[in-house]
């Protein structure tokens, strides 16, 4: 599986582009990193790839997944997972139901789906927490639950938006290894934006820097 970005740039209304047109090819199991100071449009880049651009933003260029053009698809049809720094767990659902929400339709039957969720919880070190209120989880637990929810949807690529920045140093390394190991195991491409150089170094993948564009400065 590959994630391929060609000539992608984004601008807001009639303002100049946020960054120069971007070309990038991420192979399956690889984690590419985009670095840059805050406000340069890192999150907007991920929004463009995932199809979540807010009102007023326009993108040019193309996004291909496994060679298929997905630029025109709505976000729910792109099969691109998304991880935020705040885990964005649904506050009205239990931890397990959050995962069940993500679990792909291909897993059928009540028992099978429940088992899949329980297995994922087990993998994330959250065994027995199906009924827990997500608001009562620790930061690390929340991040792991969010990763499991994303992976259960069986994504063909994953976008990571500063996923570890809310965690303390010890948890950060642990969560990094946990996340990258899962991405490698599934052999899906991943794109991460971060301002922590240690994140980029840990991936072993290509590192791109989005250092602002000449038009703006």
């Amino acid at each position, binding site marked *: 599986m590959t994630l391929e970005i060609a000539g992608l740039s984004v601008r807001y209304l009639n303002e100049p582009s946020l960054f120069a047109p971007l070309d990038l090819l991420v192979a399956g199991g690889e984690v590419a990193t985009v670095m840059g100071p805050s406000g340069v449009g890192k999150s907007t880049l991920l929004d463009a790839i*995932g199809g979540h651009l807010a009102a007023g933003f326009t993108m040019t260029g193309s996004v291909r997944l496994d060679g298929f053009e997905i630029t025109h698809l709505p976000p729910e049809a792109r099969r691109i997972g998304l991880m935020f720094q705040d885990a964005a767990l649904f506050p009205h659902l239990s931890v397990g139901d959050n995962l069940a929400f993500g679990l792909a339709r291909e897993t059928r039957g009540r028992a099978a789906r429940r088992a899949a969720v329980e297995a994922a919880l087990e993998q994330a070190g959250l065994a027995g927490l199906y009924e827990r209120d997500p608001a009562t989880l620790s930061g690390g637990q929340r991040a792991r639950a969010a990763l499991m929810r994303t992976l259960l949807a069986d994504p063909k690529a994953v976008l990571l938006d500063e996923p570890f920045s809310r965690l303390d140093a010890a948890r950060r390394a642990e969560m990094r290894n946990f996340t990258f190991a899962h991405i490698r195991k599934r052999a899906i491409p991943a794109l991460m934006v971060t301002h922590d150089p240690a994140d980029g170094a840990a991936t072993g993948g290509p590192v791109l820097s989005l250092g602002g564009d000449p038009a703006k400065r």
Partner: protein
Amino acid sequence: MGAALHAVSGVASSSPPGRALRLVVLLAVVGGVILPILAGLWATARAGFAILPAIGAETLSLEPWRMLAGLPGLGTSLKLTLLTGLGATALALILAGGTCAAVHGRMSIRAGGRMLTPFLAAPHAAVAIGLAFVLSPSGWIARALAPLAGWDRPPMLVTVNDPWGGALILGLLVKEVPFLLLVMLSALSQIAVARHIAVGRALGYGRGIVWVKVILPQVWPLVRLPVMVVLAYSLSVVDMALILGPSNPPTLAVMLLRLFSAPDTAMLLPASAGAVLQGGLVALSFGLLLLVERGVKRIGLWWLRRGGRGLSAEPGLWLTTGVTASVMVLGALGMLALLVWSLAWRWSWPGMLPESWSLGAWTRPGTGWGRALWHTVLLAFATTGLALALAVAWLEGEDRARMRRARWAEALIYLPLLVPQIAFLYGLNVLFLRIGISGGMAAVIWAQALFVFPYVMIALSDPWRALDPGLPRAAAALGAGPWRRLWAVKLPVLLTPLMTAAAIGVAVSVAQYLPTLFMGAGRIATLTTEAVTLASSSDRRVTGVYATLQAGLPFAAYAAAFLIPALAHRNRRGLLGGEGAP
């Protein structure tokens, strides 16, 4: 690589279902809310110029206006209308502004909201009846004064229905000061109040002066529309004016109601002319408001530029707070008086409480209140359900189009609240008669929904936009389409504001008097229509039952709006105590 370069905008990528939803909403709002109002205004205006085929009037003439001008007491009536309408609005604005300045930062917004809720929930008619019970010469105030004043019987004073409209203004204040307070509090949450006060005080201004010179001018643009709603309402109120206002001559709206329900159908023509006049009066008052706004701005800037720091505004602010508190205490006493009277058996002068109590008035639902209660509940559920569905569809349509609301759309929402009811409801009923639904439940539901929808929409809009955009986004990234995002994520997370909006809808529906009376053709009795009719009767026990029930329904709705989310989310800390302050 780079084979195809596509331009994709955030708006254009929204799918056709989103467009279909927006189209349905637009049609429903225009066809269901805006057109009926415009058509009602049009039909009323035609009748005002002597075109009402239903009674055989078919030639354009000014005769209705001549008849209207010839009515005894019209001049006094107009003066009274302006006095009570403008007076109540100005006083409410001053009291709410001053109170806001005095208590903001000293009382949490949640606590303030909780205190205001009962006043917002109580229907106008119930407040008026309660106030009449308290203020009347045989009411609690006179009873409390009796030993001091040496009154051995109720004094011969005109305290309710006074010819100057004082009681009516007081009644309007009980409802409108809390409303404006709530609106101001929510406007203040959008302003960096604490920082601006700190800056102002560091420059040598007292706290009160900073409020008057710096904070309130920032609040004004955010509350201008609600103030206009209050102004339009105060100038054209019917139910409160029937109960508390002067009766001979009454305010214009009450005079028109009498003409519209006169046995002589020829009176419909001057009544319609009067309805046009009522509309014009409100429009003129809006113009006056804009003039005053300009004048105050100019004077205010002159005052501001002088840079005076000496005067302290604090005593003035505390005075307004004191008056506000007294108004609210009177309102609360009125509510209590309703309940006490409904349970009283023997209550002689000058006792503060009845000598004997009885459930008699409550134990005979067959005498009428059972049926009125049923109608009221049915109407409340139907109108609130419709309004909530339309509001959710509208907001969801905005989300899918990723659009901010245009100013004209915001104005459409407020339109039903800015046009006086009596200026278009008669004309609308003429149209309802023509399509054959007048006098039925459907007509009343439709007419009430015109006023329920704006409030539900306004109550739901801010919390809807405050929803964390990460949640629907995360759901989309997990493969959930727009409908699943709505049903499985947005609506459950927004349960608290949805229930609050529903409670407001119920309160507005229960309070409707004129739409129920006109569209129901007098055949659909609700707690409100019955309570207003009974208010002038001598049996306070029965009146007390109706008014207590009338006030009780919205209270129950607010209680449910508090309890349902608390129960549904009892194990969800992230949703408790978050959004949804009342």
